[in-house]
């Protein structure tokens, strides 16, 4: 490690930054006030209004996107911090004229009413199923050292970061369960 109290580190004095980020597979360049959250960058600067602003405090999950493949709450991420990284929002889960299996399952199971939380539910479920396939345990997993069966209790616990004021939860659980079963994500593999 170099430097010390007398070093000559210079800090960019501006309150804005140039940010390059891959969004849904395409590289985008923006100049943003440092206060801009990733959520606001998507919605206000890139016209990607799928991710929703619900609570704006990391509690409701409607802003969930995938950052380098992992689900995060975009309202608590400053866009300047994701420079050089990759973001997938609900618009990137499938091509413009197609549905991902998860999206199709949400429709088949009537897993939403007003739809406001749905983009966050979809991105969260996508990230969650990846976590399950990597063998990550959850708070309701009995044995931490063996892969969990993706029971309804597991789905509910793992999706606890996404609220649905219409309370479509039973149908969301059914849609996620079907998608997991179809892709072999559950512990059977």
């Amino acid at each position, binding site marked *: 490690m*170099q430097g010390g109290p007398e070093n000559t580190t210079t*800090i960019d004095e501006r*309150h804005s930054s140039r940010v390059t980020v891959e969004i849904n597979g395409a590289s985008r360049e923006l100049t943003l006030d440092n*206060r801009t959250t990733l959520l606001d960058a998507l919605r206000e600067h890139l016209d990607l209004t799928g991710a929703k602003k619900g609570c704006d405090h990391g509690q409701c999950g409607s802003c969930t996107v995938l950052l380098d493949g992992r689900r995060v709450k975009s309202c608590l991420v400053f866009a300047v911090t994701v420079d050089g990284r990759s973001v997938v929002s609900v618009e990137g889960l499938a091509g413009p004229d197609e549905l991902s299996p998860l999206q199709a399952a949400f429709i088949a199971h009537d897993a939403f009413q007003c739809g406001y939380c749905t983009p966050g539910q979809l991105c969260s479920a996508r990230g969650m199923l990846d976590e399950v396939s990597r063998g990550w345990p959850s708070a309701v997993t009995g044995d*931490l050292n063996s892969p969990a069966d993706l029971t309804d209790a597991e789905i509910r616990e*793992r999706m606890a970061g996404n609220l649905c004021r219409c309370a479509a939860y039973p149908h969301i659980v059914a849609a996620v369960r079907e998608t997991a079963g179809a892709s072999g994500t559950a512990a059977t593999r």
Partner: protein
Amino acid sequence: MRAFRYHRPADVAEAVAVLAAEPQAAYLGGGTNLVDLMKLGVQRPDVLVDVTRLPLDTVEELPDGGLRIGATVRNSDLAAHPVVRRDYPVLARALLAAASGQLRNMATTGGNLLQRTRCVYFQDTGKACNKREPGSGCAALHGQNRDLAVLDWSEQCVATHPSDLAVALAALDTVVEVHEPDGPRDIPIADLYRSPGTHPERETTLARGTLITAVRLPPLPAARRSTYLKVRDRASFAFAAGSVAAVLDLDGDVVRDVRLAYGAVAHRPWRAYRAEEELRGRPFSPDLAARAADAELAQARPLRHNGFKLPLTRAITVRALTELASS
């Protein structure tokens, strides 16, 4: 939100040097607490030093059998680490009981330890709070204090520490590795946090600008039999109404060693030394566990709305230890 400059340091020394040179700078980790507090106007840094790209993101098995966890290891990665799951289940359980999947993907080890209280008066800039604004008073002391401290509080502050991770680390006698303006130092976690006293704005013993670089778990074979029990107002995604981290080492039915720490009861993760003393050397029984909890909680001073935390903490002590004894 106040406008701020943004800096990504090349190494730890540079990060610490920027904090030393900029009195209103703050480190940014996962942002799950700081970004929220900036939106609320509770924290108003003018420089953010983003430490998440520093090379502090590895978990390393140590020759002595311990584990060294870098400060920017995310909570979800740590909870999923095979050695943590096998050798320190109390740690994996504490992490998994906290927040939500998205937030665990973001939150860092170091940031988790330094997160701020969720006392609603601290988070509301319209209310008196000695922690947020020293000398302004404590609106919580005679206010809605159901979620707040029962142990070791002061007239100036009744806030609790919100971390689950810190409770598990307290039980494990973790060493916190920090880089201070003067250089690196090791701090036992028991010496990291302060009681509120007359200066609740000082939450830790760290000098301003200190960066946590890692935490080090000592080897503790007994921790293979350990757990974390947390009770919340709802089934998931909530801060603790009460929690206990427990490690139990039995020789036959006699307690050879035990580690207990409580969450949601004090300004710091509460290591229950008195309870441990009651348990050690005696044949284990649920009654003994209850007496041990009572010994610890005899010093409690519940507030108007949080007396329930005493029987709750007693009950989860009995349940956690009884489960471990029969596992």
